[in-house]
């Protein structure tokens, strides 16, 4: 875990400064089937390749952001705050007011 992550605010920092937030998921809200709920809660793509995932700059600016990381090489090709292009609306609860 000594690779570097480029925080969108603070620049390149050691991975140890960050907390990992997991793959992005699509939330199964009200109206989902049991299968969809189970998939959302317990299954992940777990790709060997590029993965979009959440990171928190815990020891730095404390902002949550997204990263595209290659799960085999740990190369990170992009980091960006949520809400940037392309839109990442993976977790908005459906039907919320």
């Amino acid at each position: 875990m000594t690779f570097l992550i480029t925080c969108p605010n603070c620049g390149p920092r050691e991975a140890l400064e960050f907390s990992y937030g997991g793959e992005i998921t699509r939330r199964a809200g009200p109206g989902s089937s049991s299968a969809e709920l189970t998939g959302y809660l317990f299954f992940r793509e777990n790709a060997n390749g590029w993965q979009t995932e959440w990171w928190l700059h815990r020891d730095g600016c404390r902002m949550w952001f997204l990263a595209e990381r290659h799960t085999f090489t740990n190369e990170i090709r992009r980091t960006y705050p949520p809400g940037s292009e392309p839109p990442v609306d993976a977790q908005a609860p459906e039907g919320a007011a």
Partner: protein
Amino acid sequence: MIAATRRSPIARLSASLGASVETEAGWEIAAHYGDEAAERALLRDLVAVADVTPRGKIDLRGEIDGGVLTAAGEVLTARMWDGWALLLTEPGGEEAVLDRADAAAGPRAMATDVTHLFAGLALAGPKLEDALARLTSWDPSTLAPGSATGASIGDVRAVLVRRDIGIPVLEAYVATEFARYAWETVLGVVRRLGGGPAGWRALRAEGWS
């Protein structure tokens, strides 16, 4: 009822090191540790650490525009990123700054008095980088004087502000609950490099405020 004084969590540790205490703006501060001249020498030639917890701190988060910052006044501003800034004042100065910031903030930003949320340590002296090398894997050369960032010091996260005054100075603000641990850890490293604690008098005499 005895008038309420505010005490840094590090106060008793300072006292055991021989700190001489003065009151300022309702705070107990460590004025010196018995030999102000020796402390100034440490600051100029080696490295020293001072407890600057009594400084006023205001947290600003949300949509912080130039207007809020201007309204806050002439205040040391640690702009962590667009959505978060920490304003730092002399002891007792936080109330006035909070009033102004609050008034200018509007519904999309929040100003909070966080004077009690952080303990503060000022690390100063030519051996500052040697001390930091033993406290963190963060690269201090990436922080220019006058700037601020967050990084871990002694394995606890800290808000760092670089303020050089002829000698390099780094102010580190850690969560209050870690104050004593952070002081012991930083002082230990400083001591192993030949330095020691410094009081407010010595620090101010060297040009810090």
